[in-house]
């Protein structure tokens, strides 16, 4: 594989986990360029990243939310002419050792987006019951809308092709972008593939999504999904 690959790591207040994530990527994906997008963290995430060599740090001056942070990475990848982009979250949930098999289908031109799914083999950390219910709803709705079974619509562990990155640089939802982008990409003719992965419980920090927010996002994302579908 002599493809140019970029790992995008969005990070918001991940001072305790970010170094572990960087080391994990460096160990398992040494040929991959790494860019950390610090989404205006209020802790010392940026300093932690600066202490590591061989990674690039993009410091957002204003908090853009997960979507805006990842899109910054897409923009960077587009400028740098990368062939494959893999998103690995800064909280330590995603293992770099699993990313390799996700990159392969994109590098071989078999898929435009590969989603690392927790639910294909149901191993490892599967998220709280409440959020699993949300996931269940997205699975039903999204799979029906795009006519392809997608088991893990909220997974942020994804690999993208150059074409998908170019497309998403133009439009990518601000917050809670994952389920919406599945429908968005599918409706625009991009090929999606799912592969089983094992995720870990976050190593440090707190998830940015509380139960009440989850309901709000469910409604909001459903609306966005329908909007993308009926475009």
């Amino acid at each position, binding site marked *: 594989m002599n493809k140019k690959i970029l790992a995008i790591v969005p990070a918001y207040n991940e001072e305790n986990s970010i170094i572990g994530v960087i080391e994990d990527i460096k160990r398992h994906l040494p040929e991959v360029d790494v860019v950390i*997008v610090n989404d205006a963290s209020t802790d*010392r995430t940026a*300093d*932690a990243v*600066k*202490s590591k*060599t061989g990674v*690039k*740090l*993009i*410091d*957002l*001056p*204003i908090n*853009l939310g997960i979507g*805006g942070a990842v*899109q*910054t990475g897409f*923009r*960077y990848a587009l*400028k740098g002419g990368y062939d494959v982009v893999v998103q690995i979250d800064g909280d330590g949930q995603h293992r770099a050792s699993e990313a390799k098999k996700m990159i392969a289908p994109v590098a071989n031109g078999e898929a435009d987006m590969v989603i690392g799914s927790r639910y294909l083999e149901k191993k490892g950390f599967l998220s709280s019951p409440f959020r699993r219910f949300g996931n269940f709803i997205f699975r039903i709705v999204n799979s029906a809308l795009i006519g392809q079974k997608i088991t893990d619509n909220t997974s942020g562990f994804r690999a993208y092709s150059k074409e998908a990155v170019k497309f998403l640089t133009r439009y990518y939802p*601000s917050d809670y972008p994952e389920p919406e982008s599945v429908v968005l990409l599918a409706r625009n003719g991009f090929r999606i593939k799912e592969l089983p992965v094992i995720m870990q419980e976050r190593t440090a920090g707190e998830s940015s999504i509380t139960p009440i927010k989850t309901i709000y996002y469910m409604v909001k994302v459903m609306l966005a999904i329908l909007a993308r579908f009926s475009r």
Partner: protein
Amino acid sequence: MKIEFLGIAVSLFLFVFIFNLIRRQKIRDEYSLIWFAVALFFLIISISRPLIDTIAAFMGIEYGPAALFLILISVVLWVLIRLSILISEHENEVRILIQEQAILKQKLEALEGNAKEPNQNKSVSESVSESEKQ
């Protein structure tokens, strides 16, 4: 009779206020025009009482002021939706600017780092204490 004077006074004030905003370039022409039209409408309505009754009759509403409210609420709603669209557009533009700025800053710092090789890699404690000094 009193209410008509009050109406004229308020509309005149609105008219002058908005005219002033345009004159001092506080609002963009596109939006000033909308508010200008609203102020003008107010003024005409308050000067000519029968006019609103005619409009109401035309709309099939018996009570004149009810028609006035309906028209005003519709206009205000329309302006608010226009403003929501504008804010969304601005948000999008600002987001692109933030992203481009952050990427450029990264590239600039990488160039500066290459220029003075020796102190390229700072330890965490150094950069932390530096940020605390600021």
